[in-house]
């Protein structure tokens, strides 16, 4: 007999002061074609005034729904079935429309994921910010003054100018600041942030997070932060709730939960992240078997039971109890077997791969020499790539890191021939120069270099079955036909752990992880020497990402394929890559073996980039803040393109001449005027 999952707020009575946000046994459903599908299955937590609470989880866990439910903003087919949401003592779930309106205007605010879309494109920014104040009853004149003040508070240097602009004229970081300013206008008791920095560049993201941290100190608003990036949660939130399939499975102080997880899911989640600088050669990443449940599926009493290594009968029939963890009474986990958590997960061995250095008899598998790419836009020449030189050995993984405008996508396309390099640039495979455009390359060349794309939804033809997708690639790339081709397709599928059943499905019937496997299988159809991976796991959930990364590492070790791995995730690149190249505005700023790049000394840009990454492990970092925005590639600064933002700029040199890419230690090169000894000194970590 299953007991009802109603439960009081676990830490009720904990705080003497009234909680700013209290969610009590919230059940939310979406009605799809007449059937109610459960999205939140009894979520309870509370946030004290001034506290920051993070909700973390993968897709479909319901964290966004919880955030919106806190302000009672559900889609047309969503409804709160039971449970309450109380903000500063007021019951949001039973408010009338007008009460809700005034509540949203003065007590609670929200910051959203895509700031560009969040503002009305046809109204000037100023008008929209002023609106937030007139809603509080201020006159137009007062509101205009308040608006200027609000923009100044979010560290916008020239508020008058920004107010006169339209949203599309502002950069992403600036847009998000404006949205934050609007949210703080009413001095809310509750501030909800839903993935506020997803989609922003790493350095911009760090700025926004810094801002939020500072602003928190200036108000006593309770903050509810939704994110899938655990590093952000840790760096910003006091407490965290881990969500899975509409329930909170573990809750507690963020540092403790991440350092010492107690729920099997949290354990699996944290172990699937490449943490603490672990490399692919040391261990494989942990994966959680099974797949994430669809929103609204029917689940047994413990929502995690189908994927849990500790599961047994009791988990299916009885609701797992809330087990307190530790002595402070501020942590708990929902598990029948919390005492056996240590059994979860063993460390799996890493891959064995030795990269041979290039020699005269065995040239680099891929070499780029003086490769540039300039786009012509309406009379402007936009240099997307400038004088790139790099080499890739057999079996090696070269990671390419950079923010928007860095040229990393253009680099991938130029290597493959989707874009043609400018005259004078040479792309060579195995020492032979190949045609700049794919069309001019031989079948053999096409076969040796393939690509895995970022978004598996658009990378696979929706109208084709998986079998056809793979078959066509096999036929076209290898020339094999008929029964032999069929066999090869099946071998490929097995290699990538796709079952024969999968072969007959269409892409839309597969999950993200499976789709990406098909995409990888397709790239490997012709036994390529080089696979260019363009952010292959960015669109995937963390646990799925781990499986794909393991797969890529295994394939590399078996086939001795070389990878060009483009990503913005430093943890992933550190795990997978043997060498790393850091790009900024179309130029390689630093390139070297992974350990050297992460250890230092670094180019000032790399330094700032590394300091911007919020760490899941709570490492202390010196934050290097970069002023200004990433310049447009059409208008690169003079001399060293990084100089306007460089905290270590030397005026007179850096703004005049562009530094060459020079070696600072064997295999490690940088484009910087500062002598490396000085960099070592300047970047020495405080003892």
């Amino acid at each position, binding site marked *: 007999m299953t007991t009802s999952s109603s439960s009081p707020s676990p830490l009720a009575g904990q705080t003497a002061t009234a909680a700013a946000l209290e969610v009590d046994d919230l059940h939310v459903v*979406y009605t799809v074609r007449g059937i109610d599908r459960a999205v939140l299955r009894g979520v309870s937590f509370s946030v004290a005034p001034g506290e920051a609470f993070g909700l973390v989880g993968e897709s479909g866990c319901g964290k966004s*729904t919880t955030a919106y439910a806190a302000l009672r903003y559900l889609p047309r087919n969503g409804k709160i079935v039971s449970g309450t949401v109380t903000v500063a003592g007021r019951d949001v779930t039973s408010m009338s429309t007008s009460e809700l309106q005034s509540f949203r205007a003065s007590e609670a605010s929200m910051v959203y994921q895509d700031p560009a879309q969040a503002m009305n494109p046809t109204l000037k920014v100023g008008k929209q910010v002023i609106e937030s104040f007139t809603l509080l009853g201020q006159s137009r004149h007062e509101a205009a003054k308040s608006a200027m003040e609000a923009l100044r508070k979010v560290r916008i240097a020239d508020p008058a100018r920004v107010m006169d602009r339209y949203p599309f004229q502002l950069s992403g970081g600036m847009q998000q600041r404006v949205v934050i300013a609007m949210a703080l206008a009413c001095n809310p008791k509750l501030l909800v942030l839903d993935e506020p920095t997803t989609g922003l560049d790493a350095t911009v993201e760090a700025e926004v997070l810094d801002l939020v941290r500072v602003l928190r100190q200036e108000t006593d608003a309770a903050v509810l932060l939704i994110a899938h990036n655990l590093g952000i949660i840790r760096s910003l939130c006091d407490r965290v709730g881990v969500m899975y399939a509409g329930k909170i499975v573990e809750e507690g102080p963020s540092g403790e939960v991440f350092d010492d997880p107690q729920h099997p899911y949290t354990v699996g989640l944290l172990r699937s992240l490449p943490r603490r600088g672990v490399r692919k050669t040391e261990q494989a990443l942990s994966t959680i078997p099974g797949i994430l449940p669809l*929103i609204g599926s029917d689940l047994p009493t413990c929502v995690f039971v189908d994927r849990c290594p500790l599961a047994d009968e009791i988990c299916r029939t009885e609701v797992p109890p809330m087990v307190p963890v530790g002595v402070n009474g501020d942590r708990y986990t929902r598990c029948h077997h919390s005492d056996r958590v240590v059994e979860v997960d063993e460390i799996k061995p890493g891959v064995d791969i030795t990269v041979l250095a290039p020699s005269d008899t065995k040239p680099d598998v891929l070499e780029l020499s003086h490769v540039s790419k300039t786009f012509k836009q309406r009379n402007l020449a936009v240099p997307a790539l400038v004088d790139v030189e790099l080499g890739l050995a057999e079996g090696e993984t070269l990671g390419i890191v950079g923010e928007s405008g860095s040229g990393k996508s253009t680099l991938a396309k130029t290597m493959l*021939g989707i874009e043609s390099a400018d005259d004078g640039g040479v792309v060579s495979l195995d020492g032979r120069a190949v045609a700049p455009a*794919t069309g001019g390359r031989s079948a053999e060349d096409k076969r040796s270099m393939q690509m895995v794309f970022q978004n598996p939804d658009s990378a696979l*033809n929706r109208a*084709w079955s998986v079998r056809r997708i793979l078959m066509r690639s096999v036929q076209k790339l290898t020339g094999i036909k008929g029964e032999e081709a069929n066999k090869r397709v099946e071998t490929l599928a097995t290699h990538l752990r796709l079952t024969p059943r*999968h072969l007959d499905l269409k892409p839309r*019937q597969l999950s993200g992880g499976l789709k990406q496997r098909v995409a990888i299988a*397709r790239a490997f159809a012709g036994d390529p020497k080089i696979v260019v991976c363009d952010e292959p796991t960015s669109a995937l959930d963390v646990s799925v990402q781990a499986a794909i990364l393991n797969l890529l590492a295994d394939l590399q070790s078996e086939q001795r394929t070389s990878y060009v791995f483009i990503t913005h995730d430093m943890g992933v690149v550190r795990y997978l890559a043997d060498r790393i190249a850091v790009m900024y505005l179309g130029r390689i700023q630093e390139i070297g073996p992974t350990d050297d790049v992460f250890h230092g000394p670094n180019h000032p840009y790399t330094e700032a980039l590394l300091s911007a990454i919020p760490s899941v492990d709570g490492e202390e970092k010196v934050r290097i803040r970069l002023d200004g925005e990433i310049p447009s590639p059409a208008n690169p600064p003079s001399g060293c393109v990084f100089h306007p933002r460089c905290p270590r700029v030397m005026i007179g040199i850096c703004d005049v001449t562009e530094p060459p890419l020079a070696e600072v230690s064997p295999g490690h090169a940088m484009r910087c005027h500062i002598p490396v000894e000085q960099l070592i000194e300047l970047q020495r970590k405080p003892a």
Partner: protein
Amino acid sequence: MSFTDQPSGTGMPPTIATETVMAPVAPDASPSERKQARRENWRLIRKRPAFILGCAIVFVWVVCAILGNRITPHHPLDFRGPINVSPSWDYLFGTDKTGRDVLSRVMAGARDVLKIAPLAAIIGVVCGVIVGMFMGYLGGVLDLVASRIVESFLALPTVLIGLLAITTLGNSSWVVIGVIATLFTPIVARTVRSAVLAERDLDYVTSAKLRGEGKLFIMFREILPNVTGPIIVELTVRIGYAVFTVATLSFLGAGPPPPSPDWGAQVSDNYNSIVAGFWWTTFFPALAIASLVIAANLIADSVQSVVEAS
């Protein structure tokens, strides 16, 4: 220009709001589950009342067109009956000023419309798909030039051109079909072009190029299967418009000559008698025209909802 443009907004918080109107299929579904989902989709469209009504009406007229004189209560051209009788049991739709049974004439008139309109629409759509595909995928100068030509065709009012064409080329079904098909091609091309543009930059196309696929393969084996949705919608809408235009043209005198039971011609012959009180001779053919166009649009609307949801 589809009647039935529906918005596609960026979703509100959770995606399930805009998610499946169709049967959701779990990932890792078996082939039988997948087939069941496909069947469910068709079942869902069959359940929509708009679709059922539309198909029913079309079915009735198709039967009339095929069987023609064999099922009419009286012969459509038989003018030996009583003149100007209002609707009664013998003559359900009444008789006209020359004693012909209106019901029979309306039933027989279905053939004239259904001979011309669907054919014109289909030819227009096929040509439009080819032109639109080339414009959308190849782009460049071809697209620029073709777009200008398309725009100038769009400035031509179908009915006027039809009249001009009839005058210079003579009054035959093929002229009407030709005019309609020619004027529909740019409209369809425009729709197909935008659908193709949306597909062209997707990664599966890039992947095809990396395999060395030729342009024609990419256009017609990779991209085309993904744009069939809008094409089918466009086809059904065009058929509606074609019926509309054919009726209008024949009303204006450009259709088959008397004593043809063509609907537009019937309205044209008889609207002057309305003033004298003989409304049925105009009303029923007019109703027939309206019913067929509405039916086509109902079907188009249902198809569009299904296409959008998948």
